[in-house]
């Protein structure tokens, strides 16, 4: 075990809170896993292109209490007033800045734990055995959100969750654990806007478990814009029941190191799953998307489109897996990764993977990487459009396909203003 493993375990295990017997059992099992799991290095196949060396030497201080009194909501995007808004600072729900909708249940993780709401859900679909950061989170994370959309409820307004990272003089580290339940026949649109307004050095390890019950429809929209000093490991485990619909759109605009793991277990028949992503990166930022669509039942559909535009020294990683299990006949699964490199120093590592055990399926996958189309630029210039403007138009057109998939006006407008 390296010093860093120890230090992460040390800083995160320093605070404990009461658990139900169920949660306690899960936590202990994760602690057990951690005795053998180590901080992944580049030798690990799934971490080949994302090096955590940079964070190994940082001297992180664990964020424990609310050190920030004078929080103003200046970071709220235009149009937030049309949404339910939650503000989460370093993993902790800030009730003073939040508006809790009446029709659904929203609690801090600790409160939900005390009420026994985590039982049978917490760590039910996470991979604590093999994933260092997931195990670390299951073992020690005690802040985060519990959101439950009850049976038959259609959320009337979009729910916007502003995830604020706030550092101090010293680099801060925190964990966040979320549990999101969409009960049968429910519908909701939820947006996560990740910001680090002061751009201080922050490390976060966030794990979200999502349960989508039969006939439920959940749209999740993420914008990651935490600046260049933010290191983030975000891992999502989702499970879908019969005829449910789950849509993810993730827009990544910056980050020192950002690793997004998105795992969808499609366990119910006739389910639809959408995974869309857009990375627009420059300077030394690094964003890594690892996705998994695991088709376990027949007649389900998944569609995945990740795009990236990489400028200057930025790096992108895309690793998308589709599993079609033997039972999952009549699966339709599509995956595409398209990238544009704008500089000689930018890089993208892409690896689409398809593993099929069933014999009656429709699947496709592919990846492309290229530069901006020179002939298109010349065509535009020949019509009077400057080279700069022509490139802007082409990039905008490239990105627009994903931006259009954002299902929340407030986030779309936020992005429009930004790019």
């Amino acid at each position, binding site marked *: 075990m390296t010093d860093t493993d120890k230090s992460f375990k040390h800083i995160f295990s320093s605070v404990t809170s009461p658990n139900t017997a169920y949660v306690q059992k899960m936590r202990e099992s994760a602690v057990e896993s951690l005795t053998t799991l180590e901080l992944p290095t580049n030798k690990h196949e799934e971490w080949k292109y994302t090096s955590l060396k940079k964070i190994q030497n940082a001297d992180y201080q664990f964020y424990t209490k609310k050190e920030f009194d004078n929080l103003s909501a200046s970071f709220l995007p235009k149009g937030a007033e049309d949404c339910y808004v939650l503000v989460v600072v370093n993993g902790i729900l800030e009730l003073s800045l939040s508006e809790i909708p009446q029709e659904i249940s929203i609690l801090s993780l600790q409160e939900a734990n005390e009420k026994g709401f985590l039982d049978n859900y917490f760590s039910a679909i996470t991979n604590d055995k093999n994933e260092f950061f997931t195990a670390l989170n299951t073992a020690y994370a005690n802040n985060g959100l519990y959101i439950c959309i009850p049976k038959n409820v259609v959320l009337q307004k979009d729910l916007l969750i502003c995830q604020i990272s706030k550092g101090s003089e010293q680099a801060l580290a925190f964990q966040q654990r979320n549990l999101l339940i969409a009960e049968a026949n429910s519908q909701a649109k939820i947006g996560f806007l990740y910001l680090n307004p002061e751009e201080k050095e922050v490390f976060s390890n966030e794990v979200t478990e999502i349960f989508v019950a039969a006939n439920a429809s959940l749209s999740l929209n993420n914008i990651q814009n935490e600046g260049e000093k933010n290191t983030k490991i975000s891992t999502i485990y989702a499970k879908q029941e019969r005829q449910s619909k789950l849509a993810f759109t993730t827009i990544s605009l910056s980050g020192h190191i950002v690793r997004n793991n998105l795992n969808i277990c499609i366990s119910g028949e006739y389910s639809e799953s959408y995974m869309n992503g857009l990375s627009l990166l420059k300077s030394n930022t690094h964003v890594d998307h690892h996705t998994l669509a695991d088709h376990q039942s027949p007649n389900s559909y998944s569609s995945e489109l990740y795009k990236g535009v990489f400028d200057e020294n930025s790096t992108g990683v895309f690793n998308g897996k589709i599993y079609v299990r033997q039972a999952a006949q009549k699966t339709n699964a599509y995956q595409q990764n398209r990238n544009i490199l704008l500089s000689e120093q930018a890089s993208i590592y892409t690896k689409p993977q398809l593993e099929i055990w069933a014999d009656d399926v429709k699947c496709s996958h592919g990846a492309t990487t290229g530069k901006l*189309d020179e*002939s*298109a630029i*010349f*065509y*535009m*210039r*020949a*019509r*009077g*459009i*400057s*080279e700069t*403007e022509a490139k802007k*138009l*082409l990039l*905008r*057109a*490239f990105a*627009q*396909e994903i931006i259009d998939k954002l299902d929340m006006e407030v986030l779309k407008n936020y992005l429009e203003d930004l790019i």
Partner: protein
Amino acid sequence: MLSIKNLHAKIDQKDILKGINLEIKPGEVHAIMGPNGSGKSTLASVLAGKEQYEVTDGTVTFLEKNLLELAPEERAAEGIFLAFQHPIEIPGVTTTNFLKTALNEIRKYRGLDPLDAVQFLKLLKEKAKTLQMDENLMKRSLNEGFSGGEKKRNEVFQMAMLEPRLAVLDETDSGLDIDALRIVAEGVNKLKNSQNAFLVITHFQRILDYIEPDFVHVLCDGKIIKSGGKELALELEEKGYDWVKAEATV
């Protein structure tokens, strides 16, 4: 308006244009004909400013300016328009948005205020009506999935919107059936006036039945080897290019 003197150009170390001389005045229609590989499209590309071509000798003056010193977008703003032989498909950029950007960039270059959305759409509708263009095409991505005929009509439509002083039509007739050709040619004729000029580059005489040239030039191996009136085109159609070549070498 346009004065080309002793123009030499090459691409990838291969000499293509070997001394072109051509004068075009406002109100004139010039046709350049010639066999494949004679340098017709190269001439069009050099005039538009395609960077792959290197001008090794000669001058091109357009409205008193040294054209060869200008970037492609500056040439467009000065009033040169190239109708592409193969218009490019640009997914995600609508014809409307593309033209609005182009028109306003050109207006900016000329020191004019940009058109707002209302003014622009009014102009767009007007021109679409004149050229019988389907307005739905403009809402689609530029040229994406357009048929050959639609693409060429879109070129002429763009020309109508940007109102160039000199339009260069690079084999606009290639790949068009007779109906599409007629529509495209009618469009060009509607745009013709005493202030602008056209350079029609073509392999076949057919388009010249519809767009009547004042001058016909034969381009062969990078040089204009014969010039004449519109009857020269008919003669070429009938007898091919060999007799001109033979005449030129005598």
